């Protein structure tokens, strides 16, 4: 892919588009990637990173992470911070799947113990966790109960026997965004999502049984601190978000912002998908309160799925989840906007940080970390394709320039249709089986779209985040079982 001629190399992993690249840019755009990954980025990535740089109140730079690819509004991998008093909030900077995120759970089991039961485990997980188009969950709750869920997130799960106290401690924001207001969410959003708690969805959402092999451990001491202590230890990783509820919240406010953005606030943009409102405006504040509800649904959704996973493992191995060591490593979102404190030109300021397909990455000793990770930094979970594996990394203080943010996944290099032309779902399933990865899917077509070759090389992405000082690799996790929507 030809790179924009204006793109300037700042360092081996930082590339900058100056404000002259596009009319209206208020700050430069910076792409964080080695040359090898940069070449694979679509032209749309540069265009969208530049569009973000046009948003009022943006601070320092519009960033794109090493796994960046062409999205809508922000690029996927887009990061931008705004002055809350002069800046905006944009649903297009968060994504429709608000609080889409990753959760990683330990077990004390080894590959040798799990291999003989892998089919049974994957099949049981597939039945226990609803997947695919329009699926509904096992938690039967009324619309009014759902309103409590979205205001309290994982806390509601704890109160209802679906979480352990430690789960909340190991979840970003303790599993609940404060200030969530169900009154800011439409009846339609509630209607769309109230019976979807505990569902995976489809697309690139998955639940995977993975193994931490000794040869894939980059830092043994930190791996131990994260709970990876046994050779060939089995862990469970899953990826999903706030389901139809979050999608509807984003859609509602996208439409609401379009009505007021120019007429009421005089903001003119060259991409309607970046529709925004001043953060302090009534519309901006209403979206922020509704977005927090969707974020809480994301946490509750992943918490209920974890509860189901524990039940399945317990049933299959006839041992309690405690006995199986099924503790959470961490749960971290990659689609949010949050008010955070950052140093800008030596002065600590409150900023509204948008992360769309980008993961918070707190370094050692930083506020907001669970006590047990104070020395190591935040666990960062980067999900790869279902064929190639995923990474557990640790946050770094050197990620300060990107507002303590790193990559979130491999990033697609091939369109879904192209992938379907190249790969056959059933053939892929058989090939993966031969390589020791047992898969159950709700859709063979959907499976083909998620083939490993449709994604960037996860090893290159993880290494790039380390070279750029955003996060450091602790262990690569390889799949042996996978359920897909």
């Amino acid at each position: 892919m030809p790179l924009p001629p204006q793109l300037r190399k700042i360092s081996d992993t930082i590339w900058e588009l100056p404000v002259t690249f596009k009319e209206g840019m208020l700050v430069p755009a910076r792409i964080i990637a080695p040359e090898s990954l940069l070449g694979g980025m679509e032209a749309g990535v540069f265009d969208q990173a530049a569009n973000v740089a046009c948003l009022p109140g943006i601070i320092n730079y519009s960033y794109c992470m090493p796994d960046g690819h062409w999205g809508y509004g922000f690029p996927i991998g887009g990061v931008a911070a705004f002055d809350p008093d002069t800046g905006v909030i944009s649903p297009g900077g968060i994504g429709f799947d608000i609080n889409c995120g990753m959760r990683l759970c330990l077990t004390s089991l080894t590959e040798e113990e799990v291999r003989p039961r892998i089919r049974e485990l994957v099949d049981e997980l597939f039945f226990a966790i609803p997947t695919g188009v329009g699926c509904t969950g096992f938690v039967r709750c009324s619309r009014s109960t759902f309103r409590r869920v979205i205001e309290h997130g994982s806390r509601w799960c704890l109160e209802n026997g679906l979480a352990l106290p430690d789960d909340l401690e190991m979840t970003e924001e303790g599993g609940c965004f404060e200030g969530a207001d169900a009154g800011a969410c439409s009846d339609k959003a509630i209607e769309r999502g109230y019976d979807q708690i505990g569902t995976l969805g489809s697309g690139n959402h998955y639940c995977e049984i993975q193994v931490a092999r000794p040869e894939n451990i980059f830092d043994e001491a930190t791996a131990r601190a994260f709970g990876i202590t046994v050779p060939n230890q089995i862990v469970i990783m899953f990826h999903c978000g706030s389901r139809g509820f979050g999608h509807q919240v984003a859609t509602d406010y996208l439409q609401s912002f379009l009505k007021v953005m120019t007429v009421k606030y005089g903001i003119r943009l060259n991409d309607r998908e970046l529709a925004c409102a001043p953060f302090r405006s009534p519309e901006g504040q209403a979206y922020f309160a509704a977005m927090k509800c969707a974020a809480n649904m994301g946490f509750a959704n992943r918490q209920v799925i974890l509860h189901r996973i524990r039940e399945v493992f317990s049933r299959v191995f006839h041992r309690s989840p405690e006995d199986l060591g099924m503790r959470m490593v961490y749960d971290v979102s990659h689609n949010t906007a949050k008010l955070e404190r950052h140093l800008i030109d030596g002065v600590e300021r409150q900023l509204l940080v948008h992360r769309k397909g980008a993961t918070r990455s707190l370094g050692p000793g930083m506020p907001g970390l669970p006590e047990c990770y104070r020395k190591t930094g935040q666990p960062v979970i980067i999900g790869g394709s279902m064929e190639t594996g995923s990474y557990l990394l640790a946050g770094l203080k050197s990620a300060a320039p990107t507002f303590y943010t790193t990559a979130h996944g491999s990033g697609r290099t091939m369109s879904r249709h192209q992938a379907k032309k190249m790969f056959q779902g059933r053939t892929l399933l058989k090939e993966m089986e031969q390589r020791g990865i047992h898969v159950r899917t709700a859709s063979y077509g959907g499976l083909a779209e998620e083939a490993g070759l449709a994604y960037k090389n996860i090893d290159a992405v993880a290494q790039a985040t380390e070279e750029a000082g955003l996060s450091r690799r602790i262990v690569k996790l390889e799949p042996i079982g996978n359920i897909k929507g």
Partner: protein
Amino acid sequence: MPYRFLEEIATADVAFEAWEETREELFTSCAAALLRTMAAAPELVARQQEFTIDLEHEELDLLLFSFLQELIFYKDARQLLLHADRVQITERSGIHHLEAHVSGERISPGRHRLLVDVKAVTLHRFQVAFSDGLWRAVVVLDV
């Protein structure tokens, strides 16, 4: 119902282009493309339930946006996959009114050969335009 999926404008998502002689047929084709995105065998979605969707908007393109969004809403809220059988668009005092007769049935994962869950209609490159005697739309869906 002419539509085709586009590969070059949405790497991670699903994009399609539709074209028809009338606005009404264009809306129907877009609904068909949306259904085909979610189900490999839309012809197997039986017309067991039917009802009418009424919407209005000042902008024709945002009327299409709302219409497709409504179909996505029913997919989650009622687990319904829907065909748009008949669409009527009228214009009064600068407002476009849509009356769509839709029909379909509850999702049956095995029979409908489900593909991918559509999260939302995006405004990325979203377009409805009339040129060379045809109404054309470009739609990118977040999946």
